[in-house]
């Protein structure tokens, strides 16, 4: 086990290095530069001074070496080009801390409701509760989140005026975004749990258990649910890392100062340091989450053993 984890961590580091290098050279190969946001051409001298100040006049490979040196020796991701004076590391830490609040709540809320709905749908297959749950699931997956967000904002903030339209800092600011974000999770898990349960309920060992005379409640509780939940853990990995990186659309609509914004804006702005910083953060979280999930699997499922 220990050897396995060490091996995985080494692989992780290699993956990170490849991702970092690939992102670095790719982003420098997109046309445009950090002055693009000004949406106009500056006079030559002004541009040159700007490039020199931020080291953009150097060849890309040299810039990469400087970047890696700063990262490895000082642990520094540098300063944003779009927002002078703001450290990338601080920006990521501060903003992901914000993103995690509505995102985390949405995930917990979505998981609970989603699993309950999934169980109901599986047990009442092809009856009305199943249809209702699957309708909710389809709506949750197909209706774009910005529509849901705008709708909720209009109903609860403009019409009913019981919640603020947008903002951050007050507990009531979290409610709408968390609810909106949880829809996707509810839908995903309801469908996933349902199909897994049906799958498990068709297995021979369930038939065996029933034949032994185990009560239906105990069959579901001990045999079906445990086995049906296991595959859900795979999904969970990506979602847990996702709550730190935030949701661009929901954060934008509800004015949440989270990290989601930077994933899109940094690319549009050619904010190179921000692009690479946020990429490293997201990739690192994702890989780490996968590792934890894999370890969790081996602990939870005796059928899986790590080598």
């Amino acid at each position, binding site marked *: 086990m220990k050897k396995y984890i060490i091996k995985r961590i080494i692989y992780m580091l290699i993956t990170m290095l490849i991702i970092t290098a690939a992102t670095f050279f790719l982003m420098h190969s*997109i046309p445009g530069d950090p002055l693009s946001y*000004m949406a106009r051409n500056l006079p030559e001298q002004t541009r040159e001074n700007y490039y020199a100040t931020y080291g953009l006049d150097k060849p890309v490979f040299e810039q990469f070496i400087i970047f890696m040196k700063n990262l490895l020796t000082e642990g520094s991701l540098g300063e944003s080009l779009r927002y002078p*004076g*703001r450290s990338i590391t601080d920006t990521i830490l501060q903003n992901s801390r914000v993103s995690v609040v509505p995102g985390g709540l949405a995930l917990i809320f979505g998981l609970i409701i989603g699993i309950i709905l999934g169980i109901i749908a599986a047990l009442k297959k092809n009856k009305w509760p199943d249809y209702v749950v699957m309708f909710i699931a389809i709506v949750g997956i197909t209706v774009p989140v910005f529509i849901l967000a705008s709708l909720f904002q209009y109903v609860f903030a403009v019409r009913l005026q019981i919640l603020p339209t947008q903002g951050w800092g007050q507990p009531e600011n979290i409610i709408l975004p968390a609810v909106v974000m949880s829809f996707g999770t509810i839908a995903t898990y309801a469908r996933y749990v349902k199909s897994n349960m049906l799958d498990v309920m068709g297995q021979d060992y369930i038939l065996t258990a029933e034949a032994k005379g185990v009560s239906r409640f105990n069959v579901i509780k001990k045999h079906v649910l445990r086995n049906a939940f296991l595959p859900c853990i795979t999904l969970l990995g990506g979602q847990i890392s996702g709550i730190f990186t935030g949701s661009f659309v929901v954060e*934008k609509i509800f*004015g*949440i100062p989270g990290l989601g914004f930077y994933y899109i804006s940094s690319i549009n702005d050619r904010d190179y340091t921000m692009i690479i910083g946020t990429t490293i953060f997201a990739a690192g979280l994702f890989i780490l989450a996968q590792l934890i999930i894999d370890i969790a699997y081996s602990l939870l499922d005796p059928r899986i053993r790590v080598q």
Partner: protein
Amino acid sequence: MKKKILSVMLVGIMTLSLAACGGNNEESGTSDVTVDGNQLDAEQYYNTYLSSDPTTLDSVKGNDTYSWSILLNIMEPLTRLDEQDGENVRVAAGAESWESNDDGTVWTFHLNDNKWSDGEPVTAGDYVYGIQRTLNPDSGSVNSYLITCIKNGEAVNNGEMSVDQLGVRAVDDKTLEITLEQPTPYFLSLTDTRAMLPQRQDIVEQYGDTYGAEASNIVCNGPFKIESWTHNSEIVVTKNDEYWDADNVYLDKVTWQIIQEETTVFNSFDSGSLDTCSSGTPEWIDRFSEKDGVESYEYENTTVRYHFYNTQDELFQNENIRKAFTYAIDRDDVNSTIYFDIHKPSYSWVMGPVTTGENGFYREQVGENPLQDIMGEQDPKELLLKGMEELGLGDDPSTITVTLSVGGTTQWLRTYGEYFQQKFKDVLGVNIELEQNEWGTFQSKTNSGDYQMGYMSWTIDYNDPISMLEIMKSDAGSIPTFWQNDEYDSLIEQASREMDESARTELYKQAEQILLEECPVCPVTNEVYHGFVYSYVKNVATTPFNTMGMKKVYTSGR
């Protein structure tokens, strides 16, 4: 008994009237201060918004309108542009008075007794430092080009001279002297740009690169001082009691919420959590124009939306072809079909609100719609055929395919492109292909000359026609048309140092005429600003060049 009732009533009335006279009356929420006959609300606050987080409050770095909105309120430029009856008037701000020598090369500013928010006096040295730092190449300032007219400005900015050799000096603590390279008639228009804002050397050096990146890393000397800044969320400023003109600042607190989503802005304004909003969407403009208790105002903005041609392209090198594509556009139809009449057709390069010194609006002096006069009744199709003949391309327009490049991948831009595809086909008979790239790619391709015809907008830098005209000089490189015209260059060169305003205006007029006749650029639309405020908000700016910020704003009857 009667007497008793009467006296009770009298006491009652007196109590009521006393209450009404009271200074800060809690119940009615008004104060005893009146401005222009309006009784001020006891609580003076204002909630507004920015659609993006300011990049930095270091005036030397960054150049976004968002940080400028804040800087105008927390920093004191030498002068400000106020408005009276719709016209701009330059008023005292950091400087109480100013004068120049006879040929306009040396300007002296006598500073007001202003203080920084930490209690230190504002000195001429602070202005010197701010200007030097803008031009210092090490700062990498994107605003340096604005003030290279200062003596040795260019040499300092390209590193040939040290900042000490710049033509800016503090004669004493309250007197600032600026020497220019040559007479620069529009120089005063630069005094309220961010390139010339004061900065405190000790504070800038204390915080280094992080100066202005956080609310705590800056000192203020404007009407307001910064209280808090939660990135991407909100900025709060409060009245700066150290400010020289604090008696005439009414708001105690201004909050800018940072809201990127337009619909959220409208919903917030609708629900009253914002006191103001502006819109470029017809549906919302209609809705808020009819909303009770809301006042709407509009003014022509200083942004022109235009097409530009690659004059090195084998087709657009021909002047008649450029004319054909310029004249083929029905600008009224563009305005109604694409913009639902919320903007204004444009027939000039310099937009309406631009003035020349004391002579008032430039357009009123030289003619509102010069392009319309140039176009006259000429048939664009004939011009196209003439151009094709000159280029030896035969006489069948349907053999010609032109690419229209736009910077953005939005649906709106697609619709814009499709409109022109249809119109150019109808009027000229040519085929148009639309090329949509996101902005960085678009900019990179157009700059390298890899395009034929493009669409962009340009917002003027400062209030003088030259700010629009000099970007078309041969060596400016601002808009990649690669157009060169010696006569145009020399007219702009002359105008840039002509101190006589009428003579200067005449030079501008001639230059603009050449530009519109040769058509490297094709103005299509002038943006119109549509603003909304609740009617309790008074004194908001209604001219585009206004640089008063929130200094004069107050609420009455909230």
